[in-house]
């Protein structure tokens, strides 16, 4: 045996080196050990000095775990190497392994101050700058000793041990180490990440205490923790035991007020069934409703399926017909299966109004053995008709969710269907033709250029420019250019729920314990909360139309969208540079319509169902509009002669159709298409309304 073999023999005594390691690998390790000219630094007590500049690393072999706590997650049998550094200036220092010598390696860095056994983590780094190497930044004080620790979290020592590491003064070069989706797309929307902790995991942003501010709900087994948003932007915390609940929101969570008591309840979509968490009458306690029905839940939603003014709970079923629980409004539920999507492959249900008739239709993004998407048109009275083939939207891509919005502000809902796999085609973009049909306009829209895939797709006006953007397609923000094309932008998060977590009018996101505060600014906005009276309390299913100089924007009040999270129930409108809104029109699931003129902007507006109608009807109860339905003209009679007064006619989407001065006690409506209309007449300076149909 020659000496090098003897050395190899020495190396194999090292428990780190796999027995079956090939000789050339062993020699590489042997050479590495020689080049370091030192023993491996196995403990805090035997840490080797590191200096400003380049240092050679050694193979990680130590078992001495930083005490009392490591900076980063620990796994069993993790090993460590230890260095110390004595600062010579009061400056920010960076330790980096992002060096050519470390190509292909996968490191973590932790930095401590204090003494062995009593260490305090002051900096750490992992996966910096979009790669597997690391930067750790810390604040140095002259004369203080800092411990720098590498560990084997990312595999064997041969992968995790840096060949070299560098200590230098200042922040890391080459971009900030935080967040970052790591995409090649430009950063067009900026976020400020801030931690928000709670017990368990959270995929739910919704107002839980009826102050119209979005809160964050965490779920952990039998308890929920609500972080309540305060007026000053801070969050208080309160935990509630919900009882021995049989399902977790493993696959999805939805929220809404299932018993109209004014406080939102939760719907958990679990792998073996669904559970409902009911709030008490002042939102200070929660109980649960569970049954033994087997459901392989996917997307869950709350919507008033039978239009009785009480929300119901809908659950997409992966391997069977979809399920829905009809609420009796008193905490009781009736289980139903069938009629709203049979078979399996039901992943991403979303309730939207695609045909502008003020009721919620159901679109199901489908995947797997029954992968053709479905559209169930709501015909009223609990009747639904499956119309996807006729509507031209029976898409076959393997999708888990879709993002519905009026992307061109032409008064109807279009859709981006995000593919989860490219097995049966990729992402699609369909425009609503306004006649109950859709046309695939993917080609040339920019959607077709996205090669990543994903399961979460969600519409959101990120920059408040009045054109709804979307996020998804594997974690890309698609900025709406306003002409049915999109520009892709980097997204620093993946699947989190959305809401306004600092009530600044810009939509924020939450993922993995971090709030991504949207830091865009400069555009105007409006946030609308709907409060139902005859309709369900949340006003879910209401169609809100905002008319301003930039055009007409529509929103459905929906619970919930994307695949798994629950987003705010508040409707968010970006207004770009518009400084006033002409009118807001709300068409409620009950059929009641409200119109509000010239509301304030850059604020949070709460609209109560019937609040504008009631006033008018009291004042105008002697005014009669007839005939109703009408064909060519409507006439007016009552104790006020309205001839000569100003009038406006608004259609069911809130668009102003015609206005002027009444020449007589009648109005010619021969030119109007069939539909439901509101006529408002200005009497003594107050606009008062009546509805009629043609």
């Amino acid at each position: 045996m020659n000496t090098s073999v003897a050395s190899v023999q020495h190396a194999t005594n090292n428990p780190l080196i796999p027995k079956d390691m090939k000789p050339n690998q062993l020699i590489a390790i042997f050479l590495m050990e020689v080049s370091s000219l030192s023993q491996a630094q196995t403990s805090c007590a035997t840490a080797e000095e590191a200096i400003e500049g380049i240092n050679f690393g050694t193979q990680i072999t130590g078992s001495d775990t930083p005490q009392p706590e490591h900076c980063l997650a620990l796994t069993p049998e993790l090993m460590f190497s230890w260095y110390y550094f004595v600062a010579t200036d009061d400056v920010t220092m960076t330790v980096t392994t992002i060096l050519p010598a470390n190509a292909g390696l996968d490191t973590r860095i932790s930095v401590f101050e204090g003494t062995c056994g009593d260490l305090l983590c002051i900096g750490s780094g992992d996966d910096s700058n979009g790669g597997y190497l690391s930067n750790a930044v810390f604040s140095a004080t002259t004369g203080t000793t800092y411990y720098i620790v590498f560990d084997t979290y990312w595999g064997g020592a041969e992968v995790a041990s840096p060949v070299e590491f560098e200590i230098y003064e200042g922040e890391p070069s080459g971009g900030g180490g935080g967040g970052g989706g790591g995409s090649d797309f430009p950063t067009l929307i900026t976020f400020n990440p801030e931690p928000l902790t709670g017990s368990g995991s959270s995929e739910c942003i919704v107002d839980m205490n009826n102050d119209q501010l979005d809160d964050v709900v965490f779920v952990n087994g039998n308890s929920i923790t609500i972080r309540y948003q305060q007026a000053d932007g801070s969050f208080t915390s309160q935990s509630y035991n919900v009882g021995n609940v049989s399902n977790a929101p493993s696959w999805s969570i939805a929220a809404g007020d299932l018993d109209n008591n004014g406080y939102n309840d939760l719907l958990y979509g679990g792998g073996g069934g669904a559970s409902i968490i009911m709030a008490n009458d002042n939102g200070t306690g929660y109980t649960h409703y569970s049954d033994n029905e087997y459901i392989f839940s996917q997307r869950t939603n709350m919507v008033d399926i039978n239009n009785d003014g009480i929300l119901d709970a809908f659950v997409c079923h992966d391997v069977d017909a979809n399920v829905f629980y009809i609420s009796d409004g008193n905490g009781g539920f009736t289980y139903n299966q069938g009629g709203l999507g049979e078979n399996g492959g039901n992943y991403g249900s979303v309730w939207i109004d695609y045909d502008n008739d003020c009721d919620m239709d159901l679109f199901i993004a489908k995947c797997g053995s029954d992968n053709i998407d479905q559209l169930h048109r709501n015909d009223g009275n609990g009747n639904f008709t499956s119309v996807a083939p006729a509507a031209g939207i029976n898409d076959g891509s393997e999708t888990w969710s879709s993002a519905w919005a009026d992307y061109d502000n032409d008064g109807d809902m279009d859709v981006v269907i995000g593919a989860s796999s490219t097995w049966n085609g990729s992402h699609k973009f369909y425009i609503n033709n306004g006649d109950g049909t859709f046309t695939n306009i993917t080609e040339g829209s920019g959607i077709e250029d996205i090669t990543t895939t994903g399961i979460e797709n969600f519409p959101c006006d990120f920059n408040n420019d009045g054109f709804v953007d979307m996020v998804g397609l594997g974690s890309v923000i698609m900025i709406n250019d306003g002409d049915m094309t999109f520009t892709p932008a980097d997204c620093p998060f993946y699947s989190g729920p959305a809401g306004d977590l600092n009530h600044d009018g810009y939509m924020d996101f939450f993922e993995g314990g971090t709030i991504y505060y949207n830091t865009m600014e400069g555009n105007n906005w409006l946030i609308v909360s709907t409060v139902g009276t005859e309709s369900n309390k949340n006003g879910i299913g209401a169609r809100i139309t905002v008319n301003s100089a930039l055009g007409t924007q529509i929103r459905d009040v929906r619970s919930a969208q994307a695949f798994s999270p629950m987003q705010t129930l508040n409707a968010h409108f970006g207004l770009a540079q518009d400084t006033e809104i002409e009118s807001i029109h709300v068409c409620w699931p009950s059929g009641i319509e409200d119109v509000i003129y010239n509301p304030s902007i850059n604020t949070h507006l709460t609209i109560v169902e019937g609040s504008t109608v009631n006033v008018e009807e009291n004042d105008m109860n002697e005014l009669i509009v007839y005939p109703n339905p009408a064909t060519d003209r409507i006439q007016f009679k009552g104790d006020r002669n309205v001839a000569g007064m100003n009038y406006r006619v608004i259609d069911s989407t809130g668009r102003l159709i015609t206005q002027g001065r009444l020449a007589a006690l009648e109005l010619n409506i021969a030119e109007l298409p069939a539909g439901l209309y509101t006529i408002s007449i200005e009497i003594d300076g107050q606009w008062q309304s009546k509805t009629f149909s043609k």
Partner: protein
Amino acid sequence: MQLSKRYTLVGLLICIAIFLVTCKKDEEDEEPTPVPPSTGVVFDINQVPYNKLSDYRFFTGTMKNLSPNARVLPYEPITPLFSDYAHKSRFVWMPSGVSATYAGDDNLLNFPDGTVLIKNFYYDHVQPQDERRILETRLMIRKNGAWIFADYIWNEEQTEATFSLDGEYVSLTWIHDDGSEKSVNFRIPSDVECFTCHKSNGQNNPIGPKPQNLNKVYTYLEGAKNQLTKWQEVGYLTGELPFSIVSTVDWTDESQELELRVRSYLDANCSYCHREEGHCYYRPLRLEFNETGNPDQLGVCQTPQEFINNTLTHNIARGNINRSVMYFRMNTTDQQYRMPLMGRTIIHEEAVQMMNEYISSLSPACN
């Protein structure tokens, strides 16, 4: 479609029950039911599935001893599916005069009508009595050229098992082989759950009985013998068999090559979904034994389509379990992440350890 309250499954079962009763009455009226032989299995293909497991007489003597009746042949796949550490005993039965034929090492045997595959699920040392508890007996029956499911849930007295495809949970605690106490909320599957794993291009199909999985020695009461040879001897398998069969290995057999053990385990536990005819066909993984010789099918250095978090960069990241989705999914019980999606609620520690060894043994690191 008018929405109405529909208890589809209950309705179906009532229909089946009425149908069975009606049929029996008709036959009694028209012609005397032939008296079955005093021994042997009772099987009328027009009447199955029966309401009680005992109706078939698959087992002789005290039923819970699972002592097979004549022509009820025990078998065992080389590497079994993990089902929360439940033990299983499997049997095959065919009517006389028919037999299965070979259709490829990696394909199911061509089974004749009347074939019954019988799989009993049980735990030993169930607390507090420290006894064996049989939970369910799953049947797949070949009927009119297709497979039907039947599941029989055992009573607590262990004297009878009754047909149900409704699914239910059974909570129990048992003393595991290693002496540790373990608990499970065992899931007896409903018909849609059966179908999720047992579907192939939308049709019900068995998973295990392929030559590649049966080609091993089994210790019968009469002595040890290769299972395929035994099947030929009893007439359950006829026609030509190839001289050699490419076969899976016993994943627990440490004398076997690690990669073969891993591929065998993945075939038994994952491939019924992760193949072109399975539930998860649209994902790029192809985990059948005959596919995983190709590292691309196995997911090595493959970017996952479904994002979990930034650290999980590949389905299998060579040398790095903490970046490997497959390891993560096997090593969690979180419903939305765990694999397999169904049939496992606790971690198969030994299999996770094997995956750790396997992934750690791979190099170089993925980029």
